[in-house]
């Protein structure tokens, strides 16, 4: 169902981007873990209290509890994790299909005895696979840096669950980029929609965190389905969010493949 030679070529032309994002995320993550200090956490909380309240809530820097997991969930999974992998998925989703169509190299891919479905599945699988690798890497870095600096302090099962949620969120977000990449023949349009929607979700989420008047906005953003505090505290309903994200991802990816297999290509 996939073309191995194409998969290899796609990996080869994208692995550098993946590595850059891995390095950046590893850097931020270990820094945040390094900032954790149970003794001074109370004073940290006090410091945060002293900042304008709206700014804190916009960035989702809410300290839930004084455990290491709570600290990581609050600082890293509240905002940074929503930013860097988001950029990665926007860039790479655009490159999987739309860039080949825009540049015309898709003509060569399709002049080989491979169906459009096969080519789209291969490219989609690369996107899913590389995002899985990115989140798995972040998970690993999180565990390693926590264990190195604060042995035994991290609730590993809770942390894994948190990352499972992150992964499902990114399947859905990259699905938006993928379906846009399959739909548009022009990379500018593919980027505008495939990147614009996730970025709009992020901005809407920040706004909805700010004040009670805007809190209804949370129903307008996909990111509401990913709530780090709820996940680590196992608040009921997080499972439903996981299922919803999963179903959405399946719809977005298979929709993209379907659209690409049917549409007229300007090659």
């Amino acid at each position: 169902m996939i073309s191995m030679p194409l998969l290899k070529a796609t990996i080869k032309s994208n692995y550098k981007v993946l590595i850059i994002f891995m390095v950046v995320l590893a850097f931020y993550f270990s820094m945040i873990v390094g900032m954790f200090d149970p003794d001074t956490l109370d004073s940290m909380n006090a410091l945060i209290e002293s900042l304008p309240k709206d700014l804190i809530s916009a960035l989702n820097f809410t300290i839930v509890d004084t455990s290491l997991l709570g600290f990581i969930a609050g600082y890293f999974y509240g905002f940074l994790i929503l930013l860097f992998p988001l950029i990665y998925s926007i860039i790479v989703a655009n490159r999987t299909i739309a860039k080949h169509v825009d540049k015309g190299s898709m003509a060569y891919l399709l002049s080989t005895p491979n169906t459009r479905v096969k080519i789209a599945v291969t490219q989609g699988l690369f996107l899913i696979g590389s995002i899985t690798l990115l989140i798995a890497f972040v998970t690993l870095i999180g565990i390693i840096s926590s264990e190195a600096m604060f042995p035994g302090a991290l609730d590993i099962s809770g942390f894994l669950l948190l990352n499972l949620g992150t992964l499902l969120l990114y399947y859905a977000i990259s699905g938006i980029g993928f379906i846009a990449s399959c739909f548009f023949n022009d990379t500018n349009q593919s980027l505008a929609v495939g990147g614009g929607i996730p970025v709009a979700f992020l901005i809407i989420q920040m706004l909805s965190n700010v004040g009670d008047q805007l809190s209804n906005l949370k129903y307008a953003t996909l990111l509401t389905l990913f709530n780090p505090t709820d996940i680590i505290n196992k608040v009921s309903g997080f499972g439903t969010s996981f299922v919803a994200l999963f179903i959405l991802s399946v719809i977005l990816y298979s929709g993209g493949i379907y659209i690409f297999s049917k549409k007229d290509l300007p090659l």
Partner: protein
Amino acid sequence: MIQIHQLTKSYGNKKGVFDLSFEVSKGEVFGYLGPNGAGKTTTIRHLLGFIKPDQGSCKIDGMDCHREAAIIQKNLGYLPGEIAFFDDMTGIQFLNLMASMRGLKDFTRRDELIAQFELDTKGKIRKMSKGMKQKVGIVCAFMHNPDILILDEPTSGLDPLMQNRFIELIREEKTKGRTIIMSSHSFEEVERTCDRVGIIRQGRLVAIDDIQALKAAQRKLYRVTFKTTDEASKFAKENLTVESMYENIVNVAISGDLSQFIALLPNYSVTGLDVITQSLEDIFMHYYGREGSK
């Protein structure tokens, strides 16, 4: 082998192809001529299955070009009109990717073609000249010995020497019984390779005929330069079709037999004699003008 039946695809603005029907039989080399924007590439896109017809159908070997594209491609070589590769690859990396996506194991033909076209496959495609990229495309289209070849302006970017090599290649493939359809806007190129020619204008097939018939009807323009203006005007009164004259230059149009024209020349002091290359449009306008008056 290749059947196009009442194909219509409209892009609005009178762009597209309209009610197009023709067939290319097995072993035939078919030249597809027309000015830029006439609908040549649109037709080829249908044959490759990149786009679906609004009406009508395209079939290769009895298979629908859109639905069964992947099966058709097994036995088809395609040279796109615009060269757009994977920029970050070298020539050989690209050819290897294409070969492996085809499941091609035998590289004899590929290496023959690389040698024949003096292609340097080590350089990055991004840094190649237009002609060099075109050669990569040619090798890619022919390397798996396909029975059907669809070539979109195959010689664009090639220098005259390589254009000749390409024409040799087409003749060689023809002896192997390949079915070839090649688009072009150069009559000379088509004249030297094709059995039959179809001409498309504004999305409609305006002519389809044997190359011999077209050649016989082809009218050539000769520019004769005389020593003096007087001689020129005297020459213009001879029994010849004078297209135009300017001072000491006379343009004469001749179709077929040249002997009468040549016999007249020694009577004058001629300082120059040139053949004026005619645009494709001119050639066919004339061809159809004649057909109409018959």
